[in-house]
């Protein structure tokens, strides 16, 4: 079953904000928040299993990462931020008509 199967073409969703764009955008925010929570839950479950198997110490991932580890992730962080923020610039990324 696709989520789109549940969309009713002739019944527009209720709106509560002055700008209906906010109604829709907040829906995206809550959907993302749900995904974030699902990921948190999974990561925690994974840590518990790794601890139980003796692969990591209890709280083994909680300590501050060393400079070397942070430096190793710097490129990933930068790419993540750019992907998140690039839309704010309001520029075309593929040449359009004007």
């Amino acid at each position, binding site marked *: 079953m696709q*989520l789109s199967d549940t969309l009713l073409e002739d019944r527009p969703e209720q709106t*509560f904000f002055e700008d209906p764009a906010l109604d829709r955008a*907040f829906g995206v925010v*809550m*959907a993302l*928040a749900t995904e974030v*929570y*699902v990921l948190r*839950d*999974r990561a925690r479950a994974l840590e518990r299993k790794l601890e139980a198997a003796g692969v990591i110490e209890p709280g083994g991932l909680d300590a501050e990462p060393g400079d070397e580890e942070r430096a190793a992730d710097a490129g990933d962080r930068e790419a993540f931020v750019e992907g998140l923020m690039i839309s704010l610039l309001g520029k075309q990324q593929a040449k359009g008509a004007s």
Partner: protein
Amino acid sequence: MDDRSFVAAQDFLLASKTYWTKRIYPELKKTYETAAGAAPAPPETPAEVAALLEGEVLYRYFSWLERHLQRFKYAGRYGLVPYHDERRAALSAELRDTDAELAPGLEMPNYYQRVDIHQHPGGVWSDELDGYVYERGARSTTPLMGAAHGDLHHRFTDLVAARGGAKDILDMGCGFGKSTHPFCTSFPTARVEAIDLSGPCVSLGAHDAQTKGSGNVRFRQMNAYETDYDDGSFDLVTSTMVIHELPPREIERMFTEAARVLAPGGRMAHLDFYTIDGPFARFIHYGHGRRNNEPFMQPLAEMDLHASLTEKGFTNIEVIPFKEAEGVGESGNDAWRFPWTVIMAEKMP
């Protein structure tokens, strides 16, 4: 979707709903009280409350969350409907051998088909798995009670049992039997008939009754205002959270039918949402009906049930507020709640 992700997402939605119940609603009430205090005259009607609140940003978020957390719960990526749909083969096999009495040709009333009640896509009746979807959803309908949601049904049957015994009980709009089972245990020697329009719900009810070994109950697919029982077949007719789903005309027919199937001196006991204290609570409740796809909440709240029952020959009519859990509605507990009400009456001896 895997089970763990489903549960994590549903837990997140429930936690969000609980925050709405315990933090956002009391804050909205405070906002209202401040605005009402500053108004030239205190609001007396829901429309006057609306005029004060509808422009408030907090009210907009309150409303948005009330509608959309429920939408996500049922129809989101981790919703109840897609979750059960992915498990269709196993679940439908479970229901194959139930002894529910189904009525495949039964006409579904217009009001029942027109709106998907409480935002359950397709309603609680159009898909074979709807009983499961509804059962899972009902576990978190009232976030304050969490796992103790069952308490509410038992508190109701305790109250009914305290008023006297019963030998033959009819549970109208039994759903998947959550309201029926407490009657079976509170009245262990009674014969219990459980009826509902939804085939998928009565199938699950019968399946659960078999599993639990409740021998004194029968689940049948039937319309509550058009049953096939003989006149005077019951000494207790009950319903839980059903009346508000019917339009006023059908509610009248349901009471007429209850009067017909009750033996002289028999009694009725219904648990629903009816007595509302003040214009703010009324405004909130009517809004809930709109936002949650429960279009007949408001018409019910505006009916004169006492007059309607009197006209049908009922006596000893009682309409009393009901506490669905310990500590609710007390001072210092400002959380959102339904206007739970018990409606009881007796048929003339």
